[in-house]
């Protein structure tokens, strides 16, 4: 039976964070509305325009309107500007999960007939430890969705907000008492305090009871680890009620779908249930950067099967060796290089630290996956560079200027986010604070962006807001709003600077075609100069030690030597004031193989790492279509690139299955090992390395299939996670009582579905909930709530019945299918037909009344006796 009151969700995308904010959180409520509450639902998301929203609202006429996305005091996502068209919200219950809109937009909308408006008076914030937001904190904030869910179920606006606040407060208690994390508590307090209601707090929909109780299962972070296990706290929340899931069993499966652990839900705070699983370290894929475990709670009944994932990073440590130098131009304009001795080096998060020696060298063992991280040098602003043992350092460009366009905005207009990014200066000095003394100068962060200055004057002179310039001083940006779709001339004016591709200009121009696709362009930003320098660092490819006093020759394109130089004691050398042209560099060092670089372009290359290979060592290039998973002997190859072994026999190993997350939002990509370069398909092989060569291995896509079942019914294959061959055809069938399938968000009614594994799929079978009868009766002297009668409830649901005695009576006991129980109210889990009778007894009279009652017959008897005697 379709829901009469319609529901509309609007979640336009705006930027990377909002994509997550809108898409992930929005998709969840979309799913609940469509599949669980059976609402007539309209969703506008991705690249929607202002016209689409404005035309769709009156056409679809939603009773409940839920908007997720950026907001200001009087506007939402550029659709509503200065409360101008919020009259479209008249007659509707509106929830805006959007910053600040509670301030003006809410009261304005209500004054124009909006029934009730739920919004936020302050900036909405949330905490996460990773991006995109699927970290341990994610579910806390996603539960703000419950407001809409409760409204759709028929609760009043006030009740919906209060019930959601209760859930969020449960989360706050968890973070406060269990995790002892004040930062999350702070952010929750901020959001709860910002939550406001305008209009009629008693507004409600006709309501609709959910068919099922969706259960979310998710990790809330590893707690601790022992030598053998990693302990991960798992959360389970029923998205319908505060259901008690204590004693529910959880299975943990590895990537090969073997069960590696199990646990039982053993505690709860309000509506949040917890378990703790012990994942054996032996189950980690040591060759992968991380291992994804599947967690399954087969609860059954109206809760069905909950499937989630736990991603555990590899525990294999990596040794990092690097050098830290100070580079700067002195007052005479000379380039000075000094080792940063006794410098404390730490990674971005301070998870490891090391002290440099007198040569600026440090060595530290860090957990896996941190090998790529830049290090910071205390006392200097910004980054310096860690040179890891692996991968082999390669030539890097000295600067990058990225501008990118976010085309998704309403009104046929777009929001244009322009950025100047000067990250990745691989051997750049840590002395960003020494601006003006270095070869490369960062603009003063007042970059002017011009956009079609003649035809679109409003966009002129957009100053990059200073607060975007973060600690790494790497990014400046500006947002230009309401840019019409179509072609525009972009002019970025860097006075005194030039763009590599257009060195003759002081400014950068580009024609932007602002349309419905995400576009990206990049350019390098340099200080305007007629000649260039190239900085070189020469080091031993095996030991990574600097190579001092090495003669280097600069060759032109015809290999004629045009200049020579020598490395200093730190292995550095410079060729300065070079005309902009192509060059090669040659080094001939006794005991090492001769080195000649590929072509270097003076105006594109600033710093070059030159590894020189000791004689007797091989140069083996590793090449794979999936990186980071090859082990050669005991050494893990962290990336495609070169390594330098001694000749000998080595065992090469790769994992059978690789799971990766890519893109924003992340796409889960799974790959099966296919074969080595010679066609061998075994995951481990021995090979003799006796000459320079290229090793390669290839993987093929193996899309992931998640099968879930909600309600009682059989599914073939059974619920779980599967990895299949690309484009394999699969038949998935469900037994009787199937209501429908949810296939990647689309409803399908056939019992058997034919699925082509051309991508990852998630299918959920929804079965008719099994219902049982609860017959309630009461004896004389009282009633029950719910009143005596016969009721039908879905299997697994919880019903509370209260016995209410009349005056002069008291509740005595319950009889439940013949069993005597005394709790009042009584909470029943419906898993069979039940018959419940409330027994009441008269309240015993007070003693004085009793005496009176006894005295009356005595008195009457005495009077009668007296009468008999006198007569």
């Amino acid at each position: 039976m379709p829901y009469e009151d319609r529901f509309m969700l609007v979640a336009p995308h705006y930027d990377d964070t909002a994509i997550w904010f809108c898409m992930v959180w929005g998709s969840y409520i979309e799913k609940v509305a469509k599949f669980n509450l059976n609402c007539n639902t309209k969703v506008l998301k991705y690249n929607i325009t202002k016209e689409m929203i404005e035309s769709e609202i009156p056409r679809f006429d939603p009773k409940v309107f839920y908007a997720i996305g950026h907001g200001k005091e009087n506007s939402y996502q550029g659709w509503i500007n200065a409360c101008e068209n919020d009259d479209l919200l008249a007659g509707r219950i509106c929830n805006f999960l959007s910053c600040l809109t509670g301030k003006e937009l809410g009261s304005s909308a209500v004054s124009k007939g909006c029934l009730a408006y739920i919004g936020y008076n302050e900036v909405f914030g949330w905490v996460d430890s990773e991006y995109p937001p699927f970290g341990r904190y994610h579910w806390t904030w996603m539960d703000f969705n419950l407001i809409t869910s409760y409204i759709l179920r028929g609760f009043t606006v006030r009740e919906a907000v209060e019930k959601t606040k209760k859930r969020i407060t449960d989360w706050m208690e968890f973070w406060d008492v269990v995790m002892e994390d004040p930062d999350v508590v702070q952010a929750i307090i901020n959001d709860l305090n910002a939550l406001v209601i305008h209009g009629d707090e008693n507004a409600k929909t006709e309501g609709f009871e959910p068919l099922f109780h969706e259960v979310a299962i998710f990790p809330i972070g590893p707690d601790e680890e022992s030598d053998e296990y990693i302990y991960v706290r798992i959360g389970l929340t029923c998205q319908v009620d505060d259901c008690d899931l204590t004693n529910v069993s959880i299975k943990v499966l590895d990537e090969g779908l073997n069960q590696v652990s199990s646990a039982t839900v053993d505690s709860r705070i309000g509506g949040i249930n917890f378990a703790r699983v012990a994942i054996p370290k032996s189950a980690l894929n040591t060759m992968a950067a991380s291992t994804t475990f599947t967690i399954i709670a087969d609860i059954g009944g109206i809760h069905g099967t909950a499937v989630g994932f736990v991603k555990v990073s590899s525990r294999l440590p990596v040794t990092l060796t690097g050098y830290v130098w100070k580079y700067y131009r002195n007052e005479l304009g000379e380039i000075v290089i000094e080792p940063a001795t006794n410098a404390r080096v730490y990674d971005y998060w301070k998870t490891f630290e090391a002290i440099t020696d007198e040569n600026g060298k440090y060595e530290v063992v860090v957990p896996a996956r941190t090998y790529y991280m830049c290090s910071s040098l205390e006392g200097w602003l910004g980054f310096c560079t860690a040179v890891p043992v692996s991968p082999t350092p390669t030539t890097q460009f000295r600067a990058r200027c990225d501008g990118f366009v976010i085309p998704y905005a309403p009104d046929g207009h777009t929001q244009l986010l322009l950025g100047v990014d000067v990250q990745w200066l691989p051997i750049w000095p840590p002395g960003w604070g020494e601006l003006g003394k270095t070869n490369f100068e960062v603009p003063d962060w007042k970059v002017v962006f011009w956009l079609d200055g003649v035809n679109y004057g409003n966009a002129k002179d957009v100053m990059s807001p200073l607060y975007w310039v973060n600690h790494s001083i790497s990014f400046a940006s500006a947002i230009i709003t309401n840019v019409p779709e179509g072609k525009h001339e972009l002019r970025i004016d860097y006075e005194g600077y030039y763009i590599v591709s257009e060195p003759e200009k002081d400014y950068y121009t580009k024609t932007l075609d602002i349309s419905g696709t995400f576009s990206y362009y990049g350019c390098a930003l340099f200080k305007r100069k007629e000649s260039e320098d190239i900085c070189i660092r020469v080091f031993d490819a095996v030991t990574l030690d600097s190579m001092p006093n090495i003669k280097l020759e600069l060759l032109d394109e015809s290999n004629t030597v045009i200049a020579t130089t020598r490395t200093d004691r730190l292995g550095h050398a410079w060729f300065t004031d070079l005309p902009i042209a192509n060059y090669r560099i040659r080094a001939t060092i006794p005991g090492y193989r001769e080195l000649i670089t590929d072509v270097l372009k003076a105006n594109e290359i600033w710093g070059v790492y030159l590894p020189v290979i000791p004689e007797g060592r091989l140069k083996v290039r590793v090449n794979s279509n999936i990186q980071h998973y090859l082990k050669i002997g005991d050494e893990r190859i962290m990336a495609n690139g070169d390594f330098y072994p001694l000749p000998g026999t080595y065992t090469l190993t790769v994992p059978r299955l690789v799971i990766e997350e890519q893109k924003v939002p992340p796409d889960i990509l799974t790959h099966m090992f296919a074969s080595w370069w010679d066609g061998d398909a075994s995951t481990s092989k021995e090979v003799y390395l006796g000459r320079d060569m290229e090793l390669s291995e290839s993987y093929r896509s193996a899309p992931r299939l998640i099968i879930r079942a909600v309600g009682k019914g059989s599914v073939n294959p059974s619920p779980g996670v599967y990895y299949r061959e690309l484009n394999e055809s699969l038949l998935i069938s469900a037994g009787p009582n199937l209501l429908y399938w949810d296939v990647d968000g689309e409803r399908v009614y056939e019992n058997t579905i034919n699925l082509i594994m051309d991508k990852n799929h998630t299918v959920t079978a929804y079965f008719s909930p099994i219902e049982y009868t609860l017959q309630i009766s009461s004896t004389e002297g009282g009633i029950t709530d719910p009143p005596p009668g016969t009721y039908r409830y879905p299997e697994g649901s919880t019903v509370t019945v209260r016995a209410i005695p009349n005056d002069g009576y008291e509740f005595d006991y319950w009889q439940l299918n013949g069993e005597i129980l005394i709790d009042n109210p009584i909470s029943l889990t419906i898993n069979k037909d039940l018959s419940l009778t409330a027994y009441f007894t008269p309240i015993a009279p007070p003693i004085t009344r009793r005496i009176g009652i006894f005295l009356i017959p005595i008195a009457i008897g005495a009077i009668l006796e007296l009468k008999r005697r006198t007569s």
Partner: protein
Amino acid sequence: MKITLSANELRSFLASHPSLEDVPISILNGKPISISDVLRLGKVTFEFPSDDEIWELALEYCSRILTKYPEKKLFLMTREGAVELSVIDRIEHLRKRTEIGKILHKMYKTFLTEIFRWMSLAVRR
């Protein structure tokens, strides 16, 4: 706003809000103090900080969580767009009192207000 709690009340308050132990809540002799500092110092009366002091307290708070929760990121949906802030970013914004710093200041003030409200409830109990 001034608040007075006995040592026992403070201890019992911390037992129900253990995460707040090291949260700087007031300035004493020019130095930020947390609830555990208050207990240690045996001080039972302290005042709600001024706006100026809250800048300092928020900065101190971020410095403390930097070592305890280094991986933490805060996401804010500001007027100008979404902002992802590492703890170090937060420190910079607070230090420079940028627009985002002002949002962080306000968040911290709300946080402190709630803590003081909780503490006043603890007294009433």
